[in-house]
């Protein structure tokens, strides 16, 4: 499959039958037909409604639960319309439907970011290496692109082949976005079904983005022993020129590394990054350094250390130029999605631009050519670093106290804080020379800077906080395993037996953004708990970074202690945000590899398989961006539940199951066609947890699946009960819903569980071969 078009022109062609003059041949698409590999399923390239019945099956059990962020609709000029207390808007829409619409919009924005990112990367890589870079992920990965196979129904052979899949995503995006226009869709469940469709497409787009960069740029190909790289403020040598890359699209960073390599400048310049670009830089060059997740962006800039800031796309602060000006560091924008009002200098001579930047004649420039941007950035960094010495420091303690003295304790800062931290108290304490409270604040702060912008006295609160924690952050030096990309087929197979035999209780994925209240160590603490319990722990993006910024009792990082395999008690960093597709991809591969279910265009069956059989759960402890919405929704359509953090109640909507409604939890036994009560497993698809303790108990519970073998169920219940006892005390109240036969009871807890079951009037239940799809009931041969 390649889909290139062909055009031929010849002024004169000699043939045996004659001479042809002015020949023109135009062929729309040249398609190399695939060899037969798997029968095509029912839904290749599904349209918006092709999987609607699957969505409705899910939505019937997992009802959308809305906590409206806003109860007005301000999207058209009929409005604003007040939608409270059952009122409808001028177009006829009610508040539930409006919430569904907003969810769809959020997911669409997320998808557009990933699809745009994938498309950009695709153009960049095709231009640099050609369309024919083979999609070769090594001998242990035969199922190279599970989402592409599942959704589109083809096997990509080269990066060029992905063009067709991207075009499909782009077309769907247009149709789906149009559904949010005034006067289009008017039913909340249909909005949700569309959001689920978007989520599915999002994983496809992410898969494409990550696979093409892996194969073209030679990132680790599912390597469990990918190198340990450095992360933390303290890893950067501030005496060298420092280039800070922010964003998600690795192209400019790749060019910087290449430029340094070509010019022997490797050890003369520091290249570091924030957010996903940082992940991907280390996948390309293990000497690159990760400053930290998104939440560290503003803080690192405030230290004044970066000499030049280069941005690509996504999760970059909108005030980046302003912030950079504060520390006298020029900004180079490189992506059409983020021009920042800077002059386009793509076609100007480099030395001229360097001169302008070094002399602060412009705050920054826009260069659309990554290669040129790279050269510019390196040259500028080397020239400007000596001139910037005075800006590379934070204010002194005395200056800080003077600044704090301006505070009138009006509490505007606290009101502005998304997590309601007592910012004012910390500033007040600083007035008297006590910086400890500011330092404590720095520990839990998500780095948004709203406190500062709310301060009527113009106190640079964020800088104060950074200064107060300076000693601590200077010490920050941790290790993280560079993003390894996909899970190998062999690894999937290796965990097969232990999962069936009940030795591995589940797969827990830490994904999402770093904007959760409380300490940034919370994610690492949760991960460690499940690593010690020998779950398979997977991480991506900013949360993979948070997991690194933590030391065990013995003073080692989790990536140093736990191996990088996809196996019990191992910790896998798949890579940047787009590498999330490998986590959902691993669940798809389980269906393909254990059960040999056909993937090709067979979405519904595979999602049904995963929902009923694969004990995987995602934890998006911080969920900030619209991308987080589409990623989580994509996991959900595939049957994988997600837990969101404490601020999750404002995260647009949850999908909550109702264990009290027995009728919701029947499945078909595929062997007999009988409808069997299978218990509330998994209980929810999106669940907001109030605390990390609650999240941990829920994580263990959401790994339970109707098909568990008795051994598997026993180990899952052992962890569920143990975590419940540890954090809440006593046996969980709903335990009886998950015990099917006595063999399900963990042997170390038999007596007390049996007693509890007796009280509940428990009766043994059947263990089905579960499915929600009547068409999958197996007819006896003959």
């Amino acid at each position, binding site marked *: 499959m390649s889909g290139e078009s062909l055009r031929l022109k010849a002024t004169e062609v000699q043939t045996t039958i004659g001479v042809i003059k002015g020949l023109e041949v135009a062929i729309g698409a040249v398609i*190399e037909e695939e060899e037969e590999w798997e029968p095509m399923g029912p839904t290749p390239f599904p349209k918006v409604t092709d999987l609607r019945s699957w969505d409705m099956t899910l939505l019937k059990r997992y009802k959308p639960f809305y906590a409206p962020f806003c109860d007005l609709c301000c999207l058209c000029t009929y409005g604003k319309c007040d939608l409270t207390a059952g009122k409808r808007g001028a177009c006829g829409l009610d508040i539930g439907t409006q919430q569904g619409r907003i969810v769809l919009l959020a997911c669409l924005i997320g998808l557009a970011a990933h699809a745009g990112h994938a498309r950009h990367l695709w153009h960049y890589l095709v231009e640099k290496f050609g369309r024919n870079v083979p999609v070769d992920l090594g001998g242990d990965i035969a199922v190279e692109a599970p989402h592409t196979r599942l959704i589109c129904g083809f096997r990509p052979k080269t990066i060029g082949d992905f063009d067709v899949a991207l075009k499909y995503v782009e077309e769907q995006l247009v149709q789906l976005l149009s559904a949010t226009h005034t006067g289009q869709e008017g039913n909340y469940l249909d909005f949700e079904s569309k959001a689920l469709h978007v989520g599915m497409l999002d994983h496809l787009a992410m898969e494409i983005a990550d696979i093409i960069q892996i194969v073209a740029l030679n990132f680790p190909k599912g390597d469990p022993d990918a190198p340990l790289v450095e992360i933390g403020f303290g890893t950067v040598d501030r005496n060298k020129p420092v280039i800070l890359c922010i964003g998600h699209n690795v192209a400019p960073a790749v060019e910087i590394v290449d430029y340094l390599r070509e010019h022997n400048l490797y050890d003369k310049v520091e290249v570091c990054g924030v957010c996903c670009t940082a992940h991907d830089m280390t996948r390309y060059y293990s000497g690159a350094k990760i400053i930290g997740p998104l939440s560290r962006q503003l803080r690192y800039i405030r230290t004044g250390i970066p000499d030049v800031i280069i941005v690509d796309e996504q999760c970059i602060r909108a005030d980046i130029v302003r912030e950079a000006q504060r520390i006298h560091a020029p900004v180079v924008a490189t992506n059409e999605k983020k021009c920042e009002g800077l002059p386009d200098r793509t076609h100007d001579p480099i030395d001229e631009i360097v001169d302008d930047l070094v002399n602060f004649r412009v705050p920054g420039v826009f260069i659309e050519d990554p290669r040129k941007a790279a050269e510019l950035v390196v040259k500028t960094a080397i020239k400007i670093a000596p001139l910037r010495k005075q800006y590379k420091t934070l204010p002194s303690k005395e200056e800080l106290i003077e600044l704090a003295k301006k505070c009138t304790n009006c509490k505007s800062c606290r009101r502005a804080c998304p997590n309601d931290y007592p910012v004012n108290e910390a500033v007040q304490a600083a007035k008297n020379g006590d910086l400890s409270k500011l330092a404590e604040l720095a520990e839990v702060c998500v780095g948004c800077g709203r406190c500062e912008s709310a301060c009527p006295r113009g106190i640079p609160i964020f800088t104060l906080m950074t200064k107060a924690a300076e000693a601590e952050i200077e010490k920050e030096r941790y290790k993280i395993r560079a993003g390894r990309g996909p899970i190998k087929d062999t690894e999937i197979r290796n965990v097969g037996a232990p999962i069936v035999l009940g030795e591995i209780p589940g797969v827990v994925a830490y994904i999402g953004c770093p904007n959760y209240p409380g300490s940034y160590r919370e994610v690492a603490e949760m991960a460690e708990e499940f690593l010690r319990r020998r779950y398979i722990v997977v991480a991506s993006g900013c949360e993979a970074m948070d997991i690194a910024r933590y030391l065990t009792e013995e003073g080692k990082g989790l990536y140093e202690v736990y191996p990088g395999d996809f196996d019990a008690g191992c910790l896998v960093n798949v890579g940047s945000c787009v590498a999330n597709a490998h986590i959902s991809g691993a669940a798809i591969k389980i269906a393909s590899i254990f059960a*040999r279910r056909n993937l090709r265009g067979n979405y519904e069956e595979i999602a049904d398989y995963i929902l009923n059989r694969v004990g995987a759960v995602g934890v998006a402890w911080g969920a900030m961006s619209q991308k987080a919405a589409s990623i989580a929704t994509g996991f959900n359509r595939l049957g994988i539940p997600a837990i969101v953090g404490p601020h999750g109640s404002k995260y647009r909507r949850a999908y909550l199951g109702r264990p009290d409604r027995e009728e919701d939890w029947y499945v078909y036994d595929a062997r007999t066609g009988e409808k069997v009560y299978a218990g509330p497993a998994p209980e929810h698809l999106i669940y907001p947890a109030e605390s990390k303790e609650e999240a941990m108990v829920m994580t263990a519970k959401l790994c339970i699946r109707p098909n568990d*073998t008795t051994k598997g169920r026993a180990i899952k219940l052992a962890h569920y009960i143990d975590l419940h006892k540890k954090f809440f005390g006593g046996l969980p109240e709903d335990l009886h819903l998950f015990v099917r036969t006595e063999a399900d009871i963990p042997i170390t807890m038999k007596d007390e569980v049996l007693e509890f079951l007796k009280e509940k009037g428990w009766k043994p239940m059947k263990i089905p071969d579960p499915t929600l799809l009547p068409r999958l009931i197996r007819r006896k041969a003959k």
Partner: protein
Amino acid sequence: MGMFEDIPVDVGPIYEGERIRKEQMYVEFGGPNVKEKFELCLVKPPEEVEDGKVIIVGPDIKDLEEGKSYPFGIIVEVAGKELEKDLEGVFERRIHYFCNYIEGFMHLNQRYDIWLRLSRSSFKKGLNSFNYIGKVLIRLFKSEFPIIEKIQVTFITDPEKVKEWFDKALKIYEERDARALALHDEDVEEFYGCTLCQSFAPSHVCIITPDRLSLCGSISWLDARAAARIDPKGPNFRVEKGECLDPIRGEYSGANEAVREKSLGEVERVYLYSMFGYPHTTCGCCEAIAFYIPEVDGIGIVDRNFKGPTVIGLTFSALANEVGGGRQVEGFVGISIGYMRSPKFFQADGGWSRVVWMPSHIKERVKDAIPPELYDKIATEKDAMTIEELREFLKQKGHPVVERWAKMEEKAEEVPEEVEMVPAMVPVEGVPVAGGFRIIFKNVKITAEKMIIRRELPPKKKKKE
């Protein structure tokens, strides 16, 4: 009430993966620093077992010196109407799991090779006597195996006594192994089935016999028997052997019936000792895959830890993709490493004399099972990575399959070569192509919406048995 309220530390499967490093250790039992150590389970007459008793021979934990390694033995004695000697090994392996359930108590390896550590923090919490460990073991054994009616546990730290028992234990292991090895499919009335994998691969059914371990390598006939006895409704079930329909290929009417029923009719017959005709189905978690190589008329084997491509160019993964998921595919079958040690190992196909290629680390691992005269004739990845190299290697070493080639060639000659149809140039009708004319087309425009390039491969020739 919890089962372990009176134990000073926590007990549960969550501690299974716990590793106790040297710096965290209070004392060590067995392990590499100690010559004599063992664990043993014995089935005894009821009058010889005092239910619930813990016996300590030698100093107890609290009387041992911190940081040292000690000779050590554990003896678990059980009694019960339904117990028989064959279950000893099955129970004995649980000692490992049950010890690991105890917080701060680590157990590695088995039999004469055990290595246990107690952590300093658990010792501090009060885990200072074998009495506690004994109580935990007794309760867990009784809870998991209701057929155990009486149980007592002995811990030995007295070096003299350890040595005395160590020698006895070695003999018992030897006898037990000899008994297990001597037990063959002919000697038993029943086989066992396993449908554990059906939770993920719904049409797979494993038939487990004394000569044929489960595909995953973790359930022997004895294990399956114990499991079926303890939980008759569970995933391990008794399969009547029925009539032996073919002793060479290993076809039994009972096994056929069981497979037919449990696969809902998808699989009709199964040969237990052959990869041709009706081979056993393959699940997703088999330890290795055997594959027929028609070009040399031999069998290749690859295990799941072998990363690279095999001699036929396919990796383990790719092969498993072809045959896994509960399918029956002639010429391909998932097997356990243990099955390679079986006297019935592909007996219908020639057994080891038909095996031509396997990864070197597996060849080394099952060296004891390979007939010595064949050992050097089986190629590994170091000898051959293509069919041509393999053919050369086999010829050079005089592998028994080489003799089969001559016969094969004779047969092949009888089949006429298929004639490939090559589409000839079709002359455009009505257009004279001979000399005399000159035709000029001007401004020719050919527009096609799509051009599909379809690869046409000649039909594959099948070679078999």
